[in-house]
């Protein structure tokens, strides 16, 4: 949902469809695209219609389904900077470790390190929204290559994402959006084992 301060849109992008998100500061029209897994005319039309100045690309992680459209974005919009976690995206010129504060126009993003599904995975928080990539899905979480990484991912999600206000809107890399409250209290991967 866009509000008085922001312009916001979800797009299905890429041949392995993911959620790509466009968010822009309504006052300055400065915008960022999160996870450019692909590109299509609807994105171009929306950016033009809303007169968005796309200055930044954020990657939650470097898997191909989240990065495959980067070349088209770079060619069309020549963003100032591409942000990603360490060793995630070769083209990223700004490396994140988690804990950074990023400004997009008048919007303020805080980054969290949420490794597991990918070692340098980053979650981006701009109230009231958090973009979790494949670290956290509605009712699930992104797959990992071994149980220890899964436990690390669960711990990092609890420490960072679940510490946010419960009304925070969660926008994952795949599937429907959700809220911190819904995931904290009903996501089976974060509940204690069922008894009886």
């Amino acid at each position: 949902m866009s509000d008085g301060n922001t312009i916001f849109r979800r797009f299905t992008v890429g041949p392995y469809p993911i959620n790509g998100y466009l968010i822009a500061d309504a006052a300055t029209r400065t915008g960022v695209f999160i996870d450019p897994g692909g590109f299509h005319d609807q994105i171009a039309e929306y950016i033009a219609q809303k007169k968005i100045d796309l200055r930044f690309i954020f990657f939650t992680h470097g898997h191909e389904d989240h990065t495959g459209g980067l070349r088209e974005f770079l060619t069309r919009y020549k963003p100032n900077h591409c942000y990603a976690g360490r060793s995630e995206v070769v083209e990223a010129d700004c490396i994140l470790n988690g804990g950074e504060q990023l400004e997009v126009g008048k919007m303020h993003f805080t980054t969290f390190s949420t490794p597991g599904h990918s070692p340098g995975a980053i979650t981006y928080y701009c109230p009231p929204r958090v973009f979790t990539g494949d670290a956290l899905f509605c009712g699930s979480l992104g797959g990992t290559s071994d149980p220890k990484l899964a436990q690390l991912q669960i711990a990092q999600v609890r420490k960072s994402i679940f510490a946010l206000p419960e009304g925070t809107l969660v926008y994952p890399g795949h599937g429907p959006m959700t809220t911190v409250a819904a995931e904290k209290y009903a996501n089976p991967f974060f509940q204690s084992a069922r008894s009886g």
Partner: protein
Amino acid sequence: MQYIDEDASSLILASKTLRRVRATRSNLSGWRLVDSSVVDLNLLDSQISHWRAYDVRWEAVSVDHCVGEHGFYFNCSFEALAAYNSILNAGHFVNCRFDQTRSELNSFGMCAFENTQWCGSTLSEVSFIGTVWHKCTFSDEDYYFIRFPGALFVDTTFRNCSLRKVIFRQATFIRCRFENCRLAESVFQNAQFIDTDFQQSDIREAANIEGIQGLDL
């Protein structure tokens, strides 16, 4: 056609028909509707939280990129609801009926449904995480990759439904029934069943039945 201004919160509608309304980037939270009809309402990028509706007929309502939490709907019918990219969480629906709903990448998480019927809907990648269903019926529903993790179903029936890749992980079913349903690639991991039966519905079609309790397979 009526276009709503940016702030139209706390509207009260009693025994009226609201017809052909468009709202974009509007705050429509706090509406109160009684004994009314809403026909052809199109909402985009809007806030629609804390609605209270009693005896209201909703026809051809569409919501896209909206947030509408904590609504309460009593004795309402929803015909041809279209919901996309929206968060409609923590609502409470009593004695309601949903007919021919279309929804994709939408959330009804943490909602409670009492004596409510869903009929003839087509839903794809919709969340019903943590929902509670009591005396509800799903009939002729066509679902793809719908999420019901942690949901609680009591005295609820699924009849003639296609439940492809539907996630019922850690869901609980008490006195429920699946009649003539297709369960291809569904997930019932750690689901719990009490007095629930499957008639002409084979849970072995599911992709994952690890850890289920209360079913004699």
